[in-house]
């Protein structure tokens, strides 16, 4: 089927019954072709002339340069002295040690107030009312001694500025005869001496032991 169509089309277009270009159009087109056929040759000639002229000019300049070159001066060669750098000291590895927590004790209206910064390591610290263990997670474990000593003067919890602390339930250690309470400090404790009811109750708990 396609072959039949091919045959029909071939017959029609091999000797087309019409002319697509008039005689003048054909002539114009031919002139265009003729111009383009001639132009590359000319272009090559001009290109050759240009190249020859520039080569000639270069040779001329070089020749003049040879004729008028002054006697050569003794050449001075600068040798750069090699820079010797002092040997670098060996780098010693010093492991970073965490700064110990700073405990500030202040007198305020007859009461001693302790403010603790953010604590990240376990550390034993002296307080005016005895010894307390500053544990991880900003927790302070107060020993029984601390409680007894504190009870004579001011409660331990009061001293530890509980305005800015969470107090964990009191835990009794029967074997060691010690009472533990855990106080969690906020990051930036605001110092003060006032006691809330909660603080009082914890203080009472501590007194009883």
């Amino acid at each position, binding site marked *: 089927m396609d072959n039949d*169509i*091919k045959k029909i089309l071939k017959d*029609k*277009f091999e000797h087309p*019954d019409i002319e*697509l270009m008039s005689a003048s159009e054909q002539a114009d087109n031919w002139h265009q072709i003729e111009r383009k*056929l001639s132009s590359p040759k000319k272009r090559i000639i001009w290109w050759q002339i240009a190249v020859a002229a520039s080569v000639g000019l270069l040779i001329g300049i070089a020749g003049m340069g040879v004729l008028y070159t002054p006697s050569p001066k003794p050449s001075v060669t600068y040798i750069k002295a090699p820079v010797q750098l002092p040997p670098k000291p060996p780098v010693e590895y010093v492991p970073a040690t965490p700064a110990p927590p700073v405990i500030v004790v202040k007198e305020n209206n007859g009461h001693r107030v302790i403010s603790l910064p953010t604590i990240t390591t376990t550390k034993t610290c002296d307080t005016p009312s005895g010894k307390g263990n500053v544990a991880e997670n900003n927790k302070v474990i107060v020993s029984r001694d601390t409680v007894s000593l504190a009870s004579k003067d001011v409660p331990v919890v009061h001293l530890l500025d509980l305005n800015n602390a969470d107090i964990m339930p009191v835990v009794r250690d029967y074997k060691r005869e010690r009472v533990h309470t855990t106080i969690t400090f906020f990051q930036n404790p605001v110092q003060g001496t006032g006691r809330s009811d909660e603080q009082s109750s914890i203080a009472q708990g501590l007194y009883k032991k």
Partner: protein
Amino acid sequence: MAIPIDERSLIDECVHGDRRAQKMLYERYCNEMMFVCYRYISERETAKEVLSEGFLNCYRSIGQFSYQGEGSFNAWLKRIVVNQCLMHLRKKPGPLVVDISESASDIAVDENILGRLSAKEILDLIHRLPPGYRSVFNLYFFEDKKLVEIASLLEVSENTVKSQLRKAKLLLQKQIKELYG
């Protein structure tokens, strides 16, 4: 010097750059080659420019042509002109043929009606085809190229060529029915 009339001698003169022989060769083939260009490129002025470029390429590379009997030059020249047309179409923005794969089934173009139409009328029908379909149609029906060859020329898959050819035939059939049916 007398200008030879037979094609072979004319070609020999063209190889030597004889302008008159070149002109005679041009006059002999320009109309037929214009039909080739006009089949691919629907803008007449552009088709004329492409024709000029085709003849220029022909004269510049005529030394490479080896005469192998009657019709061999015509076929060689036509190949140059067709390539010139495809090169021109490729320069246009967007792909010449959109790569789509579809199953191809045979579409019958009404041969009886096609046989009654003039070359000009057939040309008008071909011009109505989109450029991609037109190129595939021309290469297949006029240049008698195989689908693989067309795929290689247009840098698309064979399935795409099949699909484009099918659509071209479908469109052509539709137009024939609308205009002459």
